[in-house]
């Protein structure tokens, strides 16, 4: 939309602007939304968007057809994803060759392009509308709703949908105390992992004396397999900014800092743009909406350190120092950014705030559990059919998420475990699938909510290998200050590697458990304290598999290299020679058109042969 930016000097200005935007919007006008999130961009959605643009312009349809490059639409598995409005028609795996046809047949002609529709794997039915897809149908999309409709580069899109009205309300209809008590009443809890009540955190900070206070947004989403925060920042950056402004009103801060991790360059661009646009309209900066409240936001870029997700480390890193956690107390609410009282919340937490203020706590709490209100976004990834970003009410079961929304396990394999909470979380087995997902239940089961990564594993995943992977990760990501964390993780890894190599003994399992408990107890920050979770939870639920490694010297999932063997089935081998050609260790021998053999001494168990064999003649055991 093209509107000349004009500074908004009163809440009424915002209302007038919104009304004029709404009046100008024609819901019947066909619109195309192309997912421009990094995920879809991997498979070429940006090229797709530009060919849409080019064709629309070339054919002079610019006034008749709207085009938006949006943030993550959620269903990454099917990317690149294109939505056509009206009708919310969902096209999957769209290629540049499909563009012309979509415009001709769907946008202009109003018919469906059958082959681009999603097909329900169970019923075999083709489902045209988003809301019919099981993946979307079973979600409660409140925060992510914006990602569908909003061009993240356009503040007017956000305002047209009621954006920044929560700021106006907080400034003109509420006292700062009201703002805080509303957030408390909503039972909003920190979405970064620990689940500390957000309102309480704000209240403590408000009560702390000090003339300068800060609002810091933690966008250092370091958990591998989690991209909720990135999707919000890239898809709906203004909702995060609005949440930060409201936090500023609540605690009496006039400066905000967003700390973004180095691996998210696109997010930085989107927020920078959002800040500029909001400042132009007077929604950031001096005297917001004509009030006496001023608030600005700066961006601080991370430089690649997982430990900086820990709040005290993050604050130091945002100041440009070494991101090494420090002992709490004092808590950031008392002594935080630059030594001043600071509220630090996660991206998703801030994105929830405008909803609470706009609709009221009671409305907000209609979703969620008694102790924690609202929805939570998860990244459902791994060996699950429907990979993507899902938003669900707190209190839903793991089964509903993985099977209801996720569509079950890939390739008809068996579910084995789900890992929640990133490297510091735990692996939960099949018998825990009916666990209700909230902060307390997950931690009782030995895992954590974390920021919302949910990695599904099937029978081909070895839990010892998973424990090893996470320890390896934490070993290099620990800051290394606490001896218990640095050396403890190192030694846990040493033991687990021994087990994976077939050199472990049953006593090792006890030692591992004892050590894990000590590391959990003795380390200072969240990273160290939770670093034992992958080990403890796998030991708790999959001890049999560990025992198979140490007693039988077998890896049931056939993953641990020292314990597996690759073989060629001579009945199936046609002697085509492709495995021999591809084997990097030159371990495969055989004459053309005759069954080949693998030399176990030279085989490095990389699995390339198995992957290239077209006849399924290579097996591992």
């Amino acid at each position, binding site marked *: 939309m093209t509107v000349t930016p004009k500074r908004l000097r009163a809440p009424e200005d915002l209302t007038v602007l919104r009304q004029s935007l709404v009046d100008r919007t024609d819901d019947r006008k066909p619109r195309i939304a192309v997912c421009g999130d990094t995920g879809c961009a991997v498979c070429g959605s940006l090229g797709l968007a530009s060919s849409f643009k080019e064709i629309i312009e070339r054919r002079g349809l610019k006034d008749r057809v709207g085009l938006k490059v949006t943030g993550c639409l959620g269903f990454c598995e099917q990317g690149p994803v294109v939505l056509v409005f009206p009708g919310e028609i969902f096209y999957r795996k769209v290629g540049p060759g499909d563009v012309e046809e979509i415009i001709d047949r769907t946008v202009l002609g109003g018919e469906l392009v059958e082959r681009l529709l999603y097909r329900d794997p169970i019923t075999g039915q083709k489902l045209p509308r988003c809301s019919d897809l099981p993946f979307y149908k079973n979600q409660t999309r409140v925060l992510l709703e914006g990602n569908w409709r909003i061009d993240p580069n356009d503040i007017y899109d956000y305002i047209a949908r009621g954006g920044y009205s929560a700021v106006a309300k907080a400034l003109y209809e509420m006292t700062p105390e009201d703002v805080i008590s509303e957030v408390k009443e909503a039972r909003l809890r920190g979405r970064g992992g620990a689940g500390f009540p957000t309102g309480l955190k704000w209240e403590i900070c408000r009560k702390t004396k000090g003339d300068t206070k800060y609002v810091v947004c933690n966008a250092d989403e370091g958990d591998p397999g989690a991209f909720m925060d990135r999707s919000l920042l890239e898809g709906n950056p203004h909702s995060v900014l609005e949440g930060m402004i409201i936090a500023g009103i609540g605690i009496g801060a006039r400066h905000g800092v967003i700390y973004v991790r180095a691996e998210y360059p696109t997010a930085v661009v989107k927020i920078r743009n959002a800040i500029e646009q909001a400042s132009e309209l007077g929604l950031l900066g001096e005297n917001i909406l004509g009030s006496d409240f001023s608030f600005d936001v700066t961006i601080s870029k991370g430089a690649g*350190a997982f*430990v900086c997700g820990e709040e005290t480390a993050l604050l130091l890193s945002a100041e440009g120092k070494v991101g090494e956690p420090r*002992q709490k*107390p004092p808590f950031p609410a008392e002594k935080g950014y630059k030594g001043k009282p600071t509220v630090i919340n996660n991206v998703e937490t801030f994105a929830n705030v405008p909803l609470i203020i706009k609709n009221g706590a009671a409305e907000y709490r209609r979703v969620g559990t008694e102790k924690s209100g609202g929805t939570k976004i998860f990244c459902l990834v791994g060996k699950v059919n429907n990979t993507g970003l899902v938003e669900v009410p707190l209190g839903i079961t793991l089964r509903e998420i993985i099977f209801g929304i996720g569509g079950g396990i890939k390739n008809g394999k068996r579910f084995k475990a789900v890992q929640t909470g990133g490297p510091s979380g735990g692996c939960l087995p099949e018998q825990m699938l009916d666990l209700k997902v909230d902060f307390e239940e997950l931690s009782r089961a030995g895992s954590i909510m974390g920021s919302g990564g949910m990695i599904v594993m099937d029978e081909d995943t070895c839990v010892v290998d998973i424990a090893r992977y996470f320890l390896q990760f934490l*070993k*290099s*990501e*620990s*800051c*290394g*200050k*606490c*001896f*218990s964390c*640095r*050396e*403890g993780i*190192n*030694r846990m890894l*040493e033991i687990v590697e021994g087990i994976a190599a077939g050199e472990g003994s049953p*006593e090792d399992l006890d*030692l591992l458990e*004892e*050590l894990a*408990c*000590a590391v959990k*107890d*003795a*380390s*200072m920050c969240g990273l160290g304290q939770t670093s034992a979770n992958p080990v403890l939870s796998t030991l708790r639920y999959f001890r049999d598999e560990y025992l198979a490694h140490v007693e039988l010297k077998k890896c049931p999932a056939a993953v641990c290299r020292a314990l597996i063997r690759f073989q060629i089935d001579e009945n199936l081998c046609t002697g085509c020679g492709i495995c021999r050609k591809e084997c990097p260790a030159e371990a495969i021998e055989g004459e053309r058109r005759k069954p080949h053999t693998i030399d176990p001494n030279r085989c490095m168990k990389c699995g390339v042969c198995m992957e290239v064999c077209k006849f399924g003649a290579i097996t591992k055991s």
Partner: protein
Amino acid sequence: MVNMLLNGLQVSVDEGMTVLEAAKFFGINIPTLCYNEGLTPYGACRLCLVEIGEPGRSKLVTSCTYPVGEGLIVRTHSERVVKTRKLLIELYLATCPSSKVIQDLASEHHVTRVRFRPRDEKCILCGLCVRMCAEQMQGKAIGFARRGVDRKVTTPFDRKSEECRLCGGCMYICPACQARCQGPREEKPICNACLNLSQPCLDYFDDAMCFMDPCVACELNSGRTPKSERRNNP
């Protein structure tokens, strides 16, 4: 003054003290490796762990960095503390067996076995030298670099530092390299040689009750060779 419960005793201490200082004041011995009165508390060695809070909702914190507070409940030698501390000492022994300081700690805390693969690290990254250099010597010649297992104390770019005045403060304060113990080898991380030098009970109080129960030295040296001979055959 603030009132707190220290090992079940109601005590009053000055505000601004750390738990470690308070415990010391009341004669309670808490082991430390990275602590030194003249330097900023650092909290890295984790040996000075104490348990704070109500039972059931308690947690372990390092007493050297934790401030005293009104109504704080502290237990310095609870089962949980002792168990964790012993495991940490065992880890230290496995990692840096040639430090006399660590060997002594092991003896004092009855750590009689090492279940981890012994390694011979020269540094335990307690940071005493770094703080000594910066705070007492105003040197800023050495510091930490990298992170995780790669963390180390070094000079900029690992080369001879222009800031270093060769004062030796870092070497003086190092618990890992000063009074390096010659006894232990990698394959046998507990040597007891240090212990034997400082244990009077074996030679002079043969029949008296040892203050260490069970005494590591007595257990392992049941032959009880006279001290003079032991010196020749460490």
